[in-house]
């Protein structure tokens, strides 16, 4: 995905067991932080057709 022009920090993959609540919170916090730092996505946005 990085190759085609999506910022590295915008996409995350993690493997969390249903028993790992702490890890889940940690990962979610990290993801939000990383994506917030990048700002809103400007690529790969498809605008809905405008209806008059």
């Amino acid at each position, binding site marked *: 995905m*990085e*190759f*085609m*022009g*999506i*910022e*590295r920090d915008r996409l*995350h*993959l*993690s*493997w969390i067991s249903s028993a790992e609540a702490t890890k889940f919170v940690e*990962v979610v916090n*990290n993801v939000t932080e990383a994506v917030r730092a990048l700002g809103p996505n400007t*690529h*790969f*946005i*498809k605008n809905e057709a405008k209806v008059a």
Partner: protein
Amino acid sequence: MVGYIDKIKEISERLLKDGKVDMVIGFRKGTMPMMNEPHRVKSADDVKNLVWDSNCGINLANYLTDRKEKIGIVAKGCDSRNIVTHIIENKIDRDQLYIIGVPCKGMIDSHKITNAVSGEIVDVVESNGEVTVKGDGFEETFNKADVLQKNCAVCIHRNPVIYDELVTDLVEEQADVDRYEDVREIEAMSTEEKHNFFDDLLAPCIRCYACRNACPLCYCPTCFVDESRPQWVGKGDDPVDIKTFHFLRAYHCAGRCTDCGSCERACPVGINMRLLTKKLEMDCLNLYGWEAGLTLDNRPPLDTYKPDDPEEFIK
């Protein structure tokens, strides 16, 4: 390379007469110059229509999918690798095939020649490493090495990897070619540059799906772009949909693509979509030491699990 055809005809005729195969898949002269088309020969009388020159770039493994009869197939290095992939993926049985191996010295890029001359090309003659193009009021000669398909220029598997019979001696493989120079160039770009680069690259796409249809890997009964329930991707010419199609198609070829160049060759507007499949090919080589279609003995990396598989991307 031009002289191979007598041998191909001889083998094909023998196979058909002896009843060893029900048909031979090869090439016949196309209706346009530099566009030889696939041909299924089902009787010995038809063998005379087979041809072989540097315009046989289309990958014939594409015509093997789910066939039930016994087939003789003419195979270059890349075709043979895709035949291996087909066998691995249970799309054809090895016992059904008689592979006529053709050591290959590269195919001509018709886009390059068409762009280099002005006017319509009516005739192309090839001899001694030179390609002479004739049209209305012009005649030009090119060095074949200069007009090779881009994937052929960096090919390191010119000889068939499996075959039952060869039409000629094996050729020397190219050793010092840099296969991934263009991929590294893109990797060095910033995110914004990458995005713009692919925007420009894919802008001319008309969504004709010729690349998909020419690809021997694309054999799904219903392609994700044709699916309407659910509809994965829009069917119009919105740039986002076009990119989604190309990126996803490339992903479907991960670990399977042999860089045969059929997609690029089939493209009517000359998009180099091989850049996408090549990136995945390079990653497969670097991460798993895998090159598609070289052996029947190993499973491809994406359908096996090893405890030491790279996993840095999982957080």
